[in-house]
């Protein structure tokens, strides 16, 4: 088994399966914090999939896409937590 078929038939199904599991948590998640973390994990898995694609198809330009997506996911998670904290402060008042 060479590297490409290993990535395509072993690593990719694992990533897709984890994506499905995370999506179930995203749908069911009892609190907003669960959903935010699940969303962050979905995007992180997506970054992994993009990196895998860039290895399989030998396109280094995809890695920049993965980097920017990871940055935006980080910023989105921070923005969500920022508003969660503000919501909590409002409730305390």
């Amino acid at each position: 088994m060479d590297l490409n078929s290993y990535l395509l038939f072993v690593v990719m199904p694992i990533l897709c399966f984890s994506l499905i599991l995370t999506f179930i948590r995203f749908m069911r998640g009892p609190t907003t914090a669960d959903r935010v973390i699940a969303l962050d994990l979905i995007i992180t898995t997506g970054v992994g999939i993009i990196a895998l694609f860039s290895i399989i198809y030998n396109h280094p330009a995809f890695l920049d896409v993965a980097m920017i997506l990871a940055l935006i996911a980080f910023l989105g998670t921070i923005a969500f937590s920022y508003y969660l904290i503000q919501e909590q402060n409002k409730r305390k008042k």
Partner: protein
Amino acid sequence: MKSTIFKVAANYLLPLLLLFSVFVLLRGHYESGGGFVGGLIASIAFVLHFFAYGLESARSFFRFSTATLIPIGLSISLFSGILPMFAGKPFMTSLWFKKPVAIIGSVGTPLFFDIGVYLIVVGVTLTILFTISENVK
């Protein structure tokens, strides 16, 4: 936000992201990248700083209001479009210098157009986000 880890991370990320945005800006035109993506990355850097240290600290990076970046960028883009007309070519023809500059690569009017777009995107994004966050309080 009162998280020391996040503040330190934002401190290190700001110069790194600005450098990466300039790299993406300069790589543009023939490969993936360009003014728009570069501007978005630069504005993400400032938004991270804004989340960590608050609005006043993020505003203090700019001597004037962030909205003044928009006319500056527009005039740079217009200037790069008008420049070929002095050489007798149609509006917005791309002219390149023969010899590429060291590090930056080949310099021409599309580079100045992209720099204009970069400034416009930074100005627009930061103005929108700062205005929203002022009103949300």
